[in-house]
C-alpha cells in the first residue's frame, strides 16, 4: 500500500492516459489503487480515531481535561481513573447485575428461538407461512408502540424494579431476528437425518435436542453472541423498568453516574470515559474473538429478510 501511493503522484497522469489509450477496457491501475487506499485508510482513521481519543482521554488527570490545545495522549497518564470508576459508583454491582440479566435472557432467547425455529422449519401445519410472515413483520415493530401497555402489565404484576421484565419476555419466542436466523440454518440440515431417527422411534424432542441442536452449534454461537451484545448494551428496557440504583445495569448505571457527575465540582469526564471503556470492553473482546459468527449472522438474516 505504501509503495503504490508513493509511486502514483509522479506517474499518475501518464499512466492513466496511456493505459486508457492502449487498453480502453482496463483501468489505470496505480491511480485507482492509490485512490482506493486513500479512501479505505481515510475511513479507517475516521472510525478508529475516536477510540484512540477515548483511551487517551480516559487517562487524563483533572488538570489536562480542559487543557488547550487538547492532547491525544495525556502527558501524565493517570491510571487511577480506572480504579476511581469503582469507588465513585457501585460499578462492580452494575456489572454483576448486567451479567445476571444477560445470562438468563440469553438462555431464554437461545432455547425458545431454536424451538420455534424448529417448529417452523420441520413441521407442516396450516397457516405456517402466514405465521412466519408475522414473525418477520414484528422485526419492524418499534418498541415505542407497545411500551405503554407492556409497562402497565408489568406494573400490574408488581414486577417494576425487578428483573422479570428484562428476562421473561425472551423465553417467549426470543425475537424474530433469532428465529429467522436459526430457521434458515435448520433448513440447510438435510431432513434425512431426522427422518431416519423418526423411523427408529425418536420423538421430536429427541430429534431436536440430540440431532439438530448439536449440528446447529455455529448458528447457536451466532445467536448467543448477538444476544449477549443486545442485553449487555440494552438501555431502554432497564431505564423504564428499573428504578433503584443497586439494581441498575451498566448502561443505566453509567447514565445515572453521568447525570450526577456533571453536578459535582470536580470535572469527572476522564473517569466517565474510563467507565465507558470498561462498559464497552466485553463486547469488543467478544467481537474480536468471534468475528466470523458476526458476519455470518448478519448476512443470513440481512439478505433474505
Amino acid at each position, binding site marked *: 500500500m505504501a509503495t503504490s501511493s508513493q509511486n502514483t503522484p509522479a506517474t499518475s497522469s501518464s499512466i492513466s492516459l496511456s493505459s486508457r489509450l492502449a487498453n480502453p*477496457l482496463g483501468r489505470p491501475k496505480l491511480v485507482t489503487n492509490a485512490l482506493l*487506499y486513500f479512501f*479505505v485508510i481515510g*475511513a*479507517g482513521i*475516521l*472510525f478508529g480515531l*475516536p*477510540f484512540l*481519543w477515548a483511551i487517551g*482521554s480516559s487517562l487524563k488527570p483533572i488538570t489536562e481535561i480542559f487543557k488547550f490545545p*487538547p492532547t491525544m495522549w495525556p502527558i501524565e497518564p493517570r491510571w487511577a481513573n480506572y480504579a476511581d470508576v469503582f469507588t465513585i459508583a457501585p460499578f462492580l454491582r452494575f456489572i454483576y447485575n448486567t451479567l445476571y440479566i444477560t445470562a438468563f435472557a440469553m438462555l431464554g432467547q437461545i432455547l*425458545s428461538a431454536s424451538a*420455534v425455529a*424448529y*417448529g*417452523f422449519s420441520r413441521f*407442516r*401445519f*396450516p397457516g405456517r*407461512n402466514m*405465521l412466519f410472515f*408475522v414473525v418477520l413483520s414484528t422485526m*419492524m415493530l*418499534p*418498541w*415505542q*408502540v*407497545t411500551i*405503554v*401497555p*407492556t409497562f*402497565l402489565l408489568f*406494573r400490574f404484576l408488581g414486577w417494576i424494579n425487578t428483573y422479570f421484565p428484562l428476562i421473561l*419476555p425472551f*423465553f*417467549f*419466542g*426470543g425475537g424474530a431476528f433469532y*428465529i429467522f436466523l436459526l430457521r434458515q440454518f435448520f433448513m440447510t440440515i438435510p431432513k434425512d437425518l431426522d427422518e431416519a431417527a423418526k423411523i427408529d422411534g425418536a420423538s*421430536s424432542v429427541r430429534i*431436536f435436542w440430540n440431532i439438530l441442536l448439536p449440528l446447529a452449534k455455529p448458528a447457536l454461537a451466532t445467536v448467543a453472541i448477538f444476544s449477549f451484545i443486545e442485553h449487555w448494551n440494552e*438501555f*431502554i428496557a432497564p431505564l423504564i423498568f428499573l428504578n433503584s440504583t443497586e439494581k441498575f445495569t451498566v*448502561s443505566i448505571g453509567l*447514565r445515572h453516574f*453521568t447525570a450526577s457527575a456533571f453536578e459535582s465540582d470536580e470535572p469527572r469526564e476522564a473517569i466517565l*470515559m474510563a467507565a*465507558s*471503556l470498561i462498559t*464497552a470492553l466485553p*463486547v*469488543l473482546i467478544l*467481537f*474480536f474473538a468471534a*468475528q466470523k459468527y*458476526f458476519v455470518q449472522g448478519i*448476512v443470513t438474516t*440481512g*439478505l433474505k429478510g
Partner: protein
Amino acid sequence: MQAVIKPHRGWLGSSLARREAIEGYLWIAPWIIGFLIFSLGPIIASGYLSFTQYKIGGTPEWIGLENYRQAFFVDKLMWPSLMRTIYYSVATVAFGVALSLVTAILLNQEIKARPFFRALYYLPSLTPIVALAILWRWLLQPKVGLVNFMLYQINIPGPGWLTDRNWAIPALVLIALWSTIGGGRMIIFLAGLQGVPKELYESAEIDGANTLQKFFRITLPMISPVILFNLILGIIGSFSVFSIAYIATEGGPNYATWFYMLHLYYNAFSYFQMGYASALAWIFFILIFILSFIQIKLSSRWVYYEFS
C-alpha cells in the same frame, strides 16, 4: 414453495398429518404466546388507551378522540418534535445508506487486510449507546473537543455542536453516522455486492462499458432489493431515535433535540399520561406503516428482482 405436499381437502384428516400439525403448533407455541402478550396485545391495548384519559393509578376514562385532537391541534411540542424527527431521519438515512454503500464498495475491492478494515469499520456500531454519548460529548466539546480542534487547525471556527440550538441535530446526525455506517447495514451491502454474478461485469466489459456504466447499469439494479431493505429499516430506526438524544442532550438545548420519541417517553414516564402517550404511539405506528407501505409501492419502479 417449500410445501411440496399441498394441503388439499382432508389433509388434516389423515392422523399423521394432524399429529405433525399439532406438534408444529406446540413447538412454535412460545412465540405465539409471546406475540399475543408482548406484541399484538399491547398494540390493541394502546389503541384502546389512546381513546381514554388514563393517569397511572387511576382508571381509564373514555374521552373519544380528545387525545388525538390534543396531539394534532393543542400540544405545542408535538408537531415541532415530529418535524425535528423527520429532519434527523432524512439526514441520517440519506447519508447513512449512501455512505454504507460506499464503504461496502470500498471493502469489496481487492485490498490488503480486508478483514482488518471490515472489523475497524464495524467497531463503532458495537459501542454501547451511553459510552457513545459520553465519548462524543467530549469529542464535540466546543473548546477542547477533538473535532473543533481539528477545524481550528484549518482555520474554521467550529460550532457549539450539542450546546448550540442549530447544530444539535447535525451533531446527533454525525454521531449516528459514525456509529452506523460500518455496522450491519454495510455488511448487508457487502453481501449484496458479493452476490452480483461476475459474468455480468465480464460481458459488460466486452461490450466496452466503463466503471461508471457498470456501477449504474449492473451493480445498482442488482443490489436494489438490498437498498430497499436498508432504506425501510433505516427509516424505522431513525424515526425511533431516542436514546442518543435522551443521554447526550436530554432533548435540549431549549428543545432543539426534543424528538417525537422523547415527547412520547416524557408523556408516559414523567407525566404518566398513559392515554395521551398511547395516542402518540398510535400516530407513530400509523405513520411508520404508511411510510413503509409507500416505499414498498414505489419500489416497483426502481427495485429489480431477478426472478420476477
